């Protein structure tokens, strides 16, 4: 009996994971209220937890959940006069917009998640909240989990989410997919929100590792959903490719004691080659059929690294050429820094150093530890140990995470004589 219960339990978990975002999106579409949608989604899931173990999982669990949630929503609206007034307005608007969709139970859960992506990442919301909203409403993480993801206290995150939800409601941020004319302007904020989730997970060599891995996986899962919903968008393919090609190196990025292992020293047999293959196929999609975007170009660079047998045989001329392209799209000093490092691989450390010196006065690189760290590595390769040591010390003064600090200390020890 117990085993059976556990089996139902795990399939129920899987159903919730798959259906929660769709359910929520569908309810927001119908009722225009994120809070209400959230509450009745939770209630429907609770009801399922009561009924399904006894009666079995229904053949169309999504439709079951939607019907249950809608009934609860209508009940609540009947009780709540303020909301009821709003609903009357919404229904009038819906009627004006066109005929209602066919009756609930006969339809599978409609997929309104794309509209929810655009709502959560609307440019009228603070940039820092877009990733959080996406995790909360599309990935279905709890507020506590979202707080942990972005390394803020749960109460802070709760306040931020409440404020964002209030703005969505009161400023009338629409729940809809932008038209073709607005899509190029709006899609980047959605992609950036998903990518911010990925980078939060990827950049964390510190902290509880498992949770951070969950984040990169969640970002990839969200990008796969986007890719299904927007199959014609090259940058969606580009973002998914970039994340797959980067995450493929995860196992080799840290040593047995959690220390940083740079690309040069990684054991490439430990890379996930299935992910690399999938990423490479997506890069082709991202680069063909129209002007590629910054994610596609970054993915192409990642693919060149992932395809090479070792650092020496990497196609550095091609890497530099792609950075040239990227620099025209994203004129950021960090991109210029990466380009300089690639030039150093193609033409030797002096050439890279000359480019780095040209960036020395950029205020945006002040406080960025990878600038002195990159400089130090080039000086070390030139045998200019004293200067390298000084640069490693500058980097150490700026570095944030422990594993990176340990790495810099090891490098410093290799060039400092004392």
């Amino acid at each position, binding site marked *: 009996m117990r085993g059976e219960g556990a089996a139902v339990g795990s399939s129920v978990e899987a159903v919730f994971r798959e259906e929660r975002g769709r359910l929520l999106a569908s309810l927001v579409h119908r009722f225009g209220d994120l809070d209400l949608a959230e509450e009745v989604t939770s209630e429907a899931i609770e009801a399922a937890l009561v009924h399904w173990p006894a009666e079995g999982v229904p053949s169309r669990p999504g439709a079951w959940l939607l019907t249950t949630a809608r009934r609860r929503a209508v009940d609540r609206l009947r009780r709540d006069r303020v909301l009821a007034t709003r609903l009357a307005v919404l229904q009038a608007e819906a009627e004006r917009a066109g005929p209602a969709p066919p009756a609930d139970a006969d339809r599978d859960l409609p997929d309104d998640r794309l509209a929810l992506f655009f709502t959560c990442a609307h440019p009228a919301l603070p940039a820092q909240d877009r990733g959080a909203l996406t995790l909360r409403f599309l990935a279905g993480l709890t507020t506590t989990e979202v707080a942990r993801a972005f390394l803020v206290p749960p109460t802070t995150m709760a306040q931020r989410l409440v404020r964002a939800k209030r703005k969505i409601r009161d*400023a*009338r*941020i*629409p729940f809809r997919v932008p038209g073709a004319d*607005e899509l190029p302007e709006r899609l980047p904020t959605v992609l950036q929100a998903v990518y911010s989730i990925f980078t939060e997970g990827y950049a964390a060599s510190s902290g509880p590792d498992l949770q951070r891995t969950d984040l990169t996986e969640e970002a990839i899962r969200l990008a796969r959903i986007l890719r299904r919903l927007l199959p014609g968008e090259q940058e969606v393919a580009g973002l998914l490719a970039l994340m797959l090609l980067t995450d493929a190196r995860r196992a080799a990025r840290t040593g047995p004691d959690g220390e940083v292992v740079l690309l040069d020293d990684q054991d490439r047999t430990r890379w996930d080659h299935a992910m690399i293959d999938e990423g490479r196929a997506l890069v082709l999609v991202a680069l063909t059929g129209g002007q590629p975007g910054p994610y596609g170009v970054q993915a192409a660079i990642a693919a060149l690294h992932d395809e090479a047998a070792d650092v020496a045989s990497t196609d550095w001329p091609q890497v530099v050429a792609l950075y040239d392209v990227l620099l025209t799209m994203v004129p950021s000093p960090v991109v210029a820094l990466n380009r300089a490092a690639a030039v150093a691989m193609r033409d030797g450390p002096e050439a890279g150093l000359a480019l780095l010196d040209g960036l020395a006065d950029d205020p945006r690189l002040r406080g960025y530890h990878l600038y002195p760290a990159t400089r130090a590595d080039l000086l070390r390769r030139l045998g200019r140990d004293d200067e390298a040591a000084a640069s490693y010390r500058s980097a150490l003064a700026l570095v944030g995470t422990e594993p990176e600090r340990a790495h810099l200390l090891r490098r410093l020890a290799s060039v400092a004589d004392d």
Partner: protein
Amino acid sequence: MLLYMSAATDAEAGDQCTFEDWIRYEREMKDSGIWVSGHPLQDLTTCTSVRVGADGERTITDGPFVETREVLGGYDIIDVPDLDAALKWAARSPGATGGASVQVRPIAEIPVGV
């Protein structure tokens, strides 16, 4: 839509929109049926501020208290379904160009019965 423009002192800076641009924009709003009301405001030099202190005493001063580069130059109330629609109209306003900006804010709805 609140139209924020440069204070008169630096009005000569940048390419300013013409009077005709405003006339055209206003006509477009009216023709589309979204325009409810609105007014341009007189220049900041005509502004007078009133404050009533805790003791009930009235203080009248010349101009706004806060020294700002941008001042409210006028407003338009429009009736559109959502923020995206409002932002589209705001972006078409001559007041959104030349370093000026248009702020979009919903009118607060006071609940019935309060």
